[in-house]
């Protein structure tokens, strides 16, 4: 079932149009939807599992495929949704992170930390333990300072 929110929200967050043919776009969409959904923005109800690039939903991929190329609708967001989307946009736009990780890896880092912290590891798992698992599974995310920054941002995102 297609999802009319995907394209306009992607454009709002990343400031560019989505293209299904680009792997980077698909990955950014996956992480954006995961974090928005977890943050309480009702962009859909997708089930995410952990794969090579972090939390991933097959049904979301199907919806991306269906929506690709359709007109990007204008939406009249609720104030709460608007606020959450802007907050995520700000986090994704972190200049330091964009420079060192690139947007793709930065979104992957944020979503992966969230998944480990909230879904997979115990609620008493420490920051050290979570970041250790992150770097064990994703050696390309090896900037300790950035990872800690991501952890703080995810901690503050939690409702």
């Amino acid at each position, binding site marked *: 079932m297609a999802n009319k929110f995907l394209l306009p929200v992607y454009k709002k967050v990343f400031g560019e149009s989505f293209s299904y043919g680009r792997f980077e776009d698909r990955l950014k969409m996956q992480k954006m939807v995961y974090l928005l959904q977890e943050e309480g923005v009702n962009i859909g109800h997708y089930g995410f599992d*952990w*794969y090579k690039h972090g939390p991933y939903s*097959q049904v979301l991929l199907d919806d991306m495929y269906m929506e690709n190329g359709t007109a990007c609708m204008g939406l009249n*967001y609720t*104030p*709460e949704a608007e606020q959450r989307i802007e907050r995520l946009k700000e986090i994704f736009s972190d200049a330091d992170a964009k420079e060192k990780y690139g947007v793709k890896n930065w979104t992957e880092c944020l979503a992966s930390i969230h998944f480990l912290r909230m879904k997979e590891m*115990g609620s008493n798992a420490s920051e050290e333990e979570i970041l250790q698992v992150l770097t064990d599974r994703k050696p390309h995310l090896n900037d300790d300072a950035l990872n800690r920054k991501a952890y703080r941002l995810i901690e503050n995102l939690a*409702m």
Partner: protein
Amino acid sequence: MAIKFTDKILDNVHGFIEYSDAEKEVMNTLLFKRLQSIKQLSIANWIFPGSEHTRYIHSLGVMHIADKIARQLELPDQDRKIIRMAGLLHDIGHYPLSHVCETPYKKGMENYKEDSVCQAVNGDMKRYIERFSLPVAKEFMVGSVEGHHEAVGAAIIRTDPQIKKIITEECGEASIDIICDMITGNVKRQDTNPLWVQILHSEIDADGIDYMMRDAAFAGTGFGSFEMNQLIRCFERRVYDGKEILCINEKGIAAADQYLINKFFSYSQVVFNKHISNLEWMAEIIVDWMLKQSVLFPTKENLLKQWINAKGNFDNYLSFTDNFFWKALDEIKTSPKKYYAPEYIVELSKKLLNHEELSFVSDSEVRIISKDADEMKERLCQSAIYTEYVNSHDKVVLYSKKPMTKNVPYEKFIEAIERNIPEELQDDKEKYIKNKVLSRYMEGICVCNNRNEEIHLLCDDDKSLMKQLYGTNLVIFRAFQFPLADKANL
């Protein structure tokens, strides 16, 4: 330490339900007693007058059934304590009017413009019909997200010092995570046995078993009848890919079929009843507006950060019951200007306060039971629902949908998930397919036997009706007169 029951309560569905001192402590908390002021079936009692039962007794029933399943599986008492506690607390986060007030918290990033409500609602319906399909379900054990009453319940359990203390003393500190996972359906946490999650979250779970029986008993219909004891005595456990799976042995197939078929009919005849559907929709629209305008009802953020806060001050949340909803409507009716309430919200509020439905557009109902998506789409597109009512400025089209079962036979499922595996998953393809199969077994009704360790779903079993009925879906579309015509033309 063994469970010691110290008292019991009389339930007209299950007879006497026993409970321990720790469970009694939970039952005596104001947070749990709040559930006595939330009706299980919201306003269904206007149509089925006996449906007065509350989330309170349903929670006790789920605890009772979850424990029956746990005993059948021969789980030790220490595990049963946790499972019972999860059953008891599974609905502690429920909203006023149950799912009715919850729905706006789970959907809707958009504001309806007050001068074009019909067109906005109907526009979504039109788009839905034009894209109508019955895709093979690919995601199972998805787990609840923020806004879902289960997520609210988990937040309460993690935050309320009184409930946390009771759980920790009775079941151990580690059980907090486990109980929250059981309630939210999270099978990903390493320390949570997915078998326990399945007791509360699967196609036949303690929650469904209780509400089927209870809703039928109180509504006065026969659709909730099934061989519960036969079903439960057929529960067993098997292991697939290192994870425990809740199964039934072959003697339970008929009872499982009966459960699914009766559930299908109970939705068709009670939940999707024409009168109940439109009344509940009216309530949802009003709550949706209140939420988006931050008026009377708390926003999601306020609910979780202020009403359920780290200091355990739940005063606001304790009053968040069915009465809260009716008081809010009364406020809108008596002081619309104070809340900048648009005319349609005031009209809908007045109607609900007067127990008045929207007028049904005669002969507008389209009710289809089929497995064929193309056939369904064709019938919908030929109906007045599509040719006339979705373009209406003064009528709204509402719909309901229910599958017989979410599952399809194994080959069809594998074909569906393998069809579009993208390049980024190719390295993980084997793991991906294994995970999908595993979660499918966790959520679906698995059948096992005494001859080998093989398991399969009901829809893959020659002895089950589900092998014939999988893919069957019920869709219902109806048009109702909206109290005010749209002023704008979109």
